């Protein structure tokens, strides 16, 4: 009886996984930090003129090969653009352009079903204000990018952080 129980326990238990070795790999503008806990931190760098910024995404339970081709790297890219846009707050025309780059990179698939996403209205509104009130226009698109990043994380939770 004990033997049967032992066999059953062994059969049902997951194979023991040896913790993987941590490694850091840099490919083009992206650095992957493969962590022992099974996650991968990817850091993406973007530049606008002289201003550089980096954004991060944690890919949950991923390996290096999957991370390199992950569509979620766009989240890191969008975060990098957001950082640059915030850094350029004193030059709102530039901040406006940078935020639009972030919005483009994040793409259209960021909100889950049921979200009544009106951020598009604010992009259109910013477009009408960029010549007359650039600071306001910049703040509008930066706000849109911030909202969309938040929605993206919510939609793809728990696969990304």
């Amino acid at each position, binding site marked *: 009886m004990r033997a049967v129980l032992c066999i059953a326990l062994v059969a049902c238990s997951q194979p023991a996984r040896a913790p993987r070795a941590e490694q850091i790999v840099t490919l083009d503008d992206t650095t992957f930090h493969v962590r022992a806990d099974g996650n991968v931190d990817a850091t993406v760098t973007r530049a606008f003129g002289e201003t550089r910024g980096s954004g991060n995404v944690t890919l949950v339970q991923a390996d290096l090969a999957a991370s390199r081709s992950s569509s979620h790297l766009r989240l890191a890219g969008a975060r990098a653009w957001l950082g640059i846009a915030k850094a350029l707050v004193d030059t709102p025309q530039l901040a406006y352009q940078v935020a639009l780059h972030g919005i483009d990179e994040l793409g259209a698939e960021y909100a889950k079903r049921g979200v009544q996403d009106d*951020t598009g209205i604010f992009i*259109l509104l910013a477009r009408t204000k960029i010549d007359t009130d650039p600071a306001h226009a910049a703040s509008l698109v930066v706000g849109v990018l911030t909202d969309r990043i938040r929605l993206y994380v919510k939609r793809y939770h728990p696969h990304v952080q």
Partner: protein
Amino acid sequence: MSEPERRSSGEVTTSPSCAADTTIGGDVSGSDVTFESMQARASEPHETCSSQHATAELVRGPVDLSTKKEHFDLDSPAPPVTTLVNTLGGMPTASDQAYGALDSHARHPSPVRVAEAPMPVDRRRKIAGFEQIARGHLREAGAPEAIELPVSLVDALEKAWKDADASQVETGGNVVRTYGGTYKLRRSEGGTNRLFEADEHDVGWGETMIGIAHTHPYRKEGLDHGTFSDGDIVNLVDESEPLKFLRSGPFTYAIARTKEFEALVKRHEQAQRIDDLKKAMKKSYNDAFSAFHGAFPDQLEAGVNAICKQFHLVYYQGQGAELRRVGGPSIQ
């Protein structure tokens, strides 16, 4: 006198004080007249109201306000049975529940009803129009030109709008049809100043989801109203409810799905080209917005008109309960 006898004879037993309080207002022939005081009296114990009997008569025409008697005429060909049942506190009909008092100005419908004048055909058609689009499976060419929202929904949207306007945060929830055929808005949290996250699972027992409703409070941006955004419409591709509602400023907007739109989505799903459909919808909206030169809210209108026309959606707009179809059937 037992309750059934009281109903069949049309007599209402009132006390002197009750009779003295009775007031009758308006022209009974033109609209419904409710008597909340009578409802209260009908539920009183018989002993307290047994000193006097007042005969009641259904009057077709102006009511003499000087009289303190209430009259019912059981020989009238109008709806005496339901009228009397309702008058004496009977269950409201499904129609009553759905639309409250038939007078659109009556904000607090009462089951007590004395006279039920025939509803104008035009109005009946608008009410039926709403039922038609709320139940889905609408053909674009057969979409009603005008609809009338249930009072319960108009009131709920008004409240949601007031809350949104005060906080400048989008409010909303799920519009559901209850088991009894009434419509209500199940409010939920989840709004910011740029979006509203509906909880699609918030549907009660026996309720059917009709659509998501939300608001556009953009006064801080200098906009007193603004119709649907591109995102509001594009996500109809992923949603399945027949309607979508929006309240902004004094305006209420609605978009109804059609069978043609469903077919379009299905075709793109089968071809794994849903993203292409969404991109095309977005482009349609943004191109029309840019091409239209006018005030910002009018540019948004142009966007909504274009997308609805091209992708077989039916767009309604109006104030209060009555919404009219904007634009016509697709020319494609």
